[in-house]
């Protein structure tokens, strides 16, 4: 086990040194000779005296520089992930995100040591346009739809009100701290503090996903934290842009604030609308892909990415758009596409989001090695404390109110995990780089890095033992059975009927109404003729039969069965398109 670890570290160091030795982009500077650290890339400098015609062997690095470096980084990320899983007991104790950040720090340090200048940082554009969408798409596609919509009210409650509470609280208190320490922090205005708090208060879906994936808490808790991290993007985006534009205005009036409030609604609903539109178009397109099945999965990715880009272009919430798109198109696409296409979609999504996530964390580590860090004990420590404090109070207050209306109360243990699981991640990091330059910007960057590292390392590492200590309800990891599915459907119908008798327009009533609408109009329009009307009971049965056949034919490895059972359970949790056929 130790041998493997050393191999992994050596391999990473080699790769890291390769990256450090890639020259900065100055095409006409002669390359320096490689210096020691086990470099194995043959980059000999060639003298310019030999005429072009006589060169037998030449290296033209600048021609391939950009894709070459990108591939090297991705290779580094993937090898780090591989090495992590081979390193024995480490995955059980340390979450993957921490290890990746540490690898990033190592590589960043190596690069800094060799080049004596700051290593490449994660550019905000690269992050928002290329690295974030695959992760959010994967999350949206595998979102347990039924559970999500059942808890939607609570999730929105936490996402919108919770974020507002955090932003205003942290911002105002930080301003107070700046006033108190006016010697060193005097030039940080209230708007700056509010801008900072708007980006630091938001819970990050990437970090939450990567940590919560490994602790297997009960589904309701998972969906609450995760849903909140997805939906608070709308609020964060608006507040951030709002405060940024306020900073550029000479005077801020009450009307501006009111308009800002309307914008939250607009941004959220706009993102939703864009996502819905693209989701339905994607579903319609997938209806006609029977003759070109090979490219069918491509449409899923293209349309989702388009929805993200469109909403970013319109300054709406891209995350909400892409999640809505994925949720909308999933049931129709799955019915229209062949089994192979569906499987390729699922595997590709998982692969891309995994690579993206790894890259993000590694870059977080690399970008921490900076030339200039501005440190202020007062600011950094108070930010950390305030983040924790305001999140805890926010969760407790909001839960106290929402428990009066919920069927399933959120217990104190669950509340603690919700508060403790509010991790910050790369979104804050990218947003802080985008702030207009002002004297204390370096301080903000340093503080953001500290907060992110703290939440990922301290909170990320301790949450698993805490979950076990507090005996939080865990996820039931059993395979679905046809019986459960049948009886659950029976209960759904029963409850819908009783709600009709009582005249109470509850959850079951609306779910039923939506299902009827779905049946009558959407499914007929968006799904191919021959694929119509497959009840969820039949789907579960067929999945189980298929799985039994596969189990008989070959020996399923542990990873495969985990993936299958997670796919199965996510499939089960989705709102079934066609669980009953209403004859019309």
């Amino acid at each position, binding site marked *: 086990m130790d041998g493997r670890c050393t191999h992994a570290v050596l391999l990473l160091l080699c790769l890291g040194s390769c990256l450090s030795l890639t020259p900065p982009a100055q095409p006409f500077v002669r390359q320096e000779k490689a210096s020691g650290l086990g470099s194995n890339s043959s980059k000999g400098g060639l003298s310019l005296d030999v005429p072009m015609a006589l060169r037998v062997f030449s290296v033209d690095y600048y021609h391939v520089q950009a894709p070459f470096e990108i591939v090297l980084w991705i290779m580094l990320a993937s090898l780090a992930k591989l090495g992590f899983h081979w390193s024995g007991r480490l995955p059980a104790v340390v979450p993957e995100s921490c290890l990746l950040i540490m690898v990033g720090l190592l590589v960043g340090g190596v690069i800094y040591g060799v080049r004596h200048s700051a290593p490449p940082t994660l550019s905000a554009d690269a992050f928002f346009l290329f690295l974030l969408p695959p992760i959010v798409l994967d999350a949206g596609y595998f979102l347990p739809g039924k559970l999500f919509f059942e808890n939607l009210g609570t999730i929105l409650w936490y996402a919108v009100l919770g974020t507002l509470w955090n932003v205003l609280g942290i911002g105002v208190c930080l301003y107070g701290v700046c006033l108190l320490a006016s010697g060193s922090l005097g030039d940080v205005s209230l708007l700056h503090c509010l801008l900072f708090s708007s980006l630091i208060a938001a819970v990050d879906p990437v970090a939450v996903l990567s940590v919560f994936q490994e602790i297997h808490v009960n589904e309701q808790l998972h969906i609450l934290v995760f849903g909140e991290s997805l939906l608070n993007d709308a609020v964060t985006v608006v507040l951030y842009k709002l405060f940024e534009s306020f900073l550029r205005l000479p005077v801020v009036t009450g009307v501006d604030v009111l308009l800002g409030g309307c914008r939250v609604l607009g941004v959220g609903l706009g993102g939703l609308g864009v996502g819905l539109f693209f989701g339905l178009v994607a579903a319609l397109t997938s209806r006609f892909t029977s003759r070109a099945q090979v490219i069918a999965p491509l449409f899923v990715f293209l349309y989702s990415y388009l929805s993200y880009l469109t909403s970013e272009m319109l300054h709406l919430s891209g995350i909400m758009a892409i999640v809505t798109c994925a949720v909308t198109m999933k049931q129709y696409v799955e019915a229209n596409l062949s089994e192979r296409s569906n499987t390729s979609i699922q595997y590709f999504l998982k692969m891309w989001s995994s690579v993206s996530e790894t890259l993000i964390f590694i870059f977080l580590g690399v970008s921490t090695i900076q030339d200039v860090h501005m440190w202020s004990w007062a600011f950094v420590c108070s930010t950390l404390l305030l983040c924790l404090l305001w999140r805890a109070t926010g969760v407790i207050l909001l839960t106290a109110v929402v428990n009066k209306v919920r069927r399933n109360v959120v217990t104190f243990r669950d509340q603690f995990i919700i508060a403790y699981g509010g991790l910050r991640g790369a979104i804050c990091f990218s947003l802080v780089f985008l702030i207009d330059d002002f004297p204390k910007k370096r301080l903000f960057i340093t503080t953001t890095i500290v907060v992110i590292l703290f939440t990922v390392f301290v909170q990320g590492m301790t949450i698993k033992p805490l979950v076990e200590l507090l005996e939080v309800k865990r996820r039931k990891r059993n395979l679905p059975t*046809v019986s459960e599915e049948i009886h659950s459907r029976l209960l759904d119908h029963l409850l819908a009927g009783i709600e009709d008798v009582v005249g109470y327009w509850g959850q079951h009533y609306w779910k039923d109404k939506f299902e009827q609408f779905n049946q009558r109009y959407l499914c007929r329009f968006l799904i191919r003729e021959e694929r119509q009307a497959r009840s969820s009971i039949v789907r579960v049965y067929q999945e189980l039969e298929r799985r039994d056949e596969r189990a008989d034919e070959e020996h399923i490895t542990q990873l495969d069965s985990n993936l299958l059972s997670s796919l199965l359970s996510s499939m089960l949790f989705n709102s079934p398109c066609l669980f009953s056929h209403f004859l019309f």
Partner: protein
Amino acid sequence: MGSRASTLLREEEIEEIKKETGFSHSQITRLYSRFTSLDKGENGTLSREDFQRIPELAINPLGDRIINAFFPEGLDREDQVNFRGFMRTLAHFRPIEDNEKNKDPTASEPLNSRTNKLLFAFRLYDLDRDDKISRDELLQVLRMMVGVNISDEQLGSIADRTIQEADQNGDNSISFNEFIKVLEKVDVEQKMSIRFLH
């Protein structure tokens, strides 16, 4: 509407229903006004036609069985259910509250206990009340829920698999205990509860 309903429903009746079902005073009066609005014949009882008049219930695949559940034993066409019976059936769907669990242990089990909820669901399958869900009964319910696009053989194999998963004593039918065991991982208390507004 409110005052008319409460004059027709006497205080002693409300108290009795309260004791039997556990509903609160306001819930009972609210449900009584719903009862009277359904009762088109205004004779203080509901017939099957009154239930079938509820639009969404008519298209619910299990609509007939749910209506049946309101009427006491005997599938007589002329059956009528009074308010007491109505409330007794609805009591099964009251959420279980923690403070009830420590009440008088010698009293009979409340109507909304987990076992009684499961029994209610069980009776939706078991029409002939022989305390067993036979393969035929299961097939009938499956056909209602799944629709017409599935062949009989496929439905039969689904039914067989369901019985195979649940059956423990090998009698090719699901008894009530086996039913309880299958659903032990499902949160029945939450799933089978309606928040009756206070």
